[in-house]
């Protein structure tokens, strides 16, 4: 009777070993979600419509790399199997690297009809608001997940994308694009206004 129990235990042990090996093989080979999946067709819905009047005169394109790495905590227990995994992974527990391409546009926002035109026989004066950042364009097609190791939440990814956006804005600020936008605005308005009168364009920060 005792021998039978031992035999049963051995059989169960072998069966369990087979199941574990089977699951491991499945996880490593069969379950990889490598195929390209296609999303279902769903309609778009318009949430708001706005009438605007924005004249963009400078476009700045930038590419930013944002990386986050989580290392294993230091451990000296060499007999711990996780320690061996750590060695294989070069001490990196998780890593997410994004390459974000974006575009920033500078120009005039005239949506509130906040400009004035005065003229006499010789001169035309145009008073415009000062150029500002009008658009920060980021989209999934301009974002590349360069490296993804381990599980990452949407919140962390969003945080990294926000960091990339912030970095892009900071880069743009260092390039004095506002004055470049002013120069281009003058050039554009001169092209649109065909006149023999003298054209004076002024930028007023109080408008």
């Amino acid at each position: 009777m005792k021998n039978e129990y031992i035999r049963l235990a051995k059989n169960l042990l072998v069966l369990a070993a087979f199941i574990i090996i089977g699951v491991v093989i499945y996880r490593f080979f069969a379950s990889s979600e490598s195929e390209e999946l296609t999303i279902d067709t769903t309609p778009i819905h318009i949430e708001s419509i706005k009438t605007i009047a924005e004249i963009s005169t400078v476009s700045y394109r930038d590419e930013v790399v944002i990386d986050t790495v989580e290392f294993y905590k230091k451990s000296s227990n060499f007999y711990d199997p996780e320690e061996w995994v750590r060695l294989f992974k070069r001490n990196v527990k998780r890593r997410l690297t994004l390459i974000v391409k974006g575009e920033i546009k500078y120009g005039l926002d005239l949506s509130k009809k906040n400009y004035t035109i005065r003229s006499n026989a010789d001169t035309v004066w145009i008073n415009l608001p000062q150029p500002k950042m009008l658009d920060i364009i980021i989209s999934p097609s301009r974002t590349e997940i360069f490296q993804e190791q381990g599980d990452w939440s949407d919140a962390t990814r969003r945080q990294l994308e926000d960091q990339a956006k912030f970095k892009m804005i900071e880069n743009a600020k260092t390039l004095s694009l506002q004055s470049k936008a002013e120069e281009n605005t003058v050039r554009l308005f001169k092209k649109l206004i065909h006149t023999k009168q003298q054209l004076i364009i002024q930028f007023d920060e109080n408008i």
Partner: protein
Amino acid sequence: MKYFVFYIALLFLCFGCSEPSPVPEAEVFEIKNIGELSTTEYTVGKIIKLDDKAEEWYKYGDRKLLINCKAKIKAGVDLSKIKNGDIKISGTTIEITLPPVEITSFSMDPSLIRTEMESVTGLRDRFTQQEKNSFLRQGEEAIKKDMAETGIFKDATDNASAFVTDFYEQLGFENIIIHQTPPSDEK
């Protein structure tokens, strides 16, 4: 055998101590002079729906995903495309041919993207960020395709005409004739 084990352990130690792979550097930027007049802004929403059923015999479990995303789209005319012959003046009459309306800005800000539901059952893998980005790209393409069916181009045309008329009226023109080139399918 003893030495073999020693060398293998040494090899692991060497790899274990090395630094992780470097991050790619990106310092490329481009500044361009443009002259776009955006006259209409649409905010559109879309639900990205994915139902990944286990169709293969060896796969067990399903994966489902619902992402709610929004896109801000601006449309208008590219004033830098106006050529010398496109503006004709005769006394207080001005005749202007505007370039075709086009999408001037398309943005899907990360703050406007939210995963509403994510379900993974059985032995299936979780959705990776790489996969989610691929679905969002498909969603973005779908929005761009469907945009033509909304009234964005008509609104942009009407608003561009209204803005140009108002601008030239303030310059003292009494008769403003605007010709609008029909939108092309370029963008």
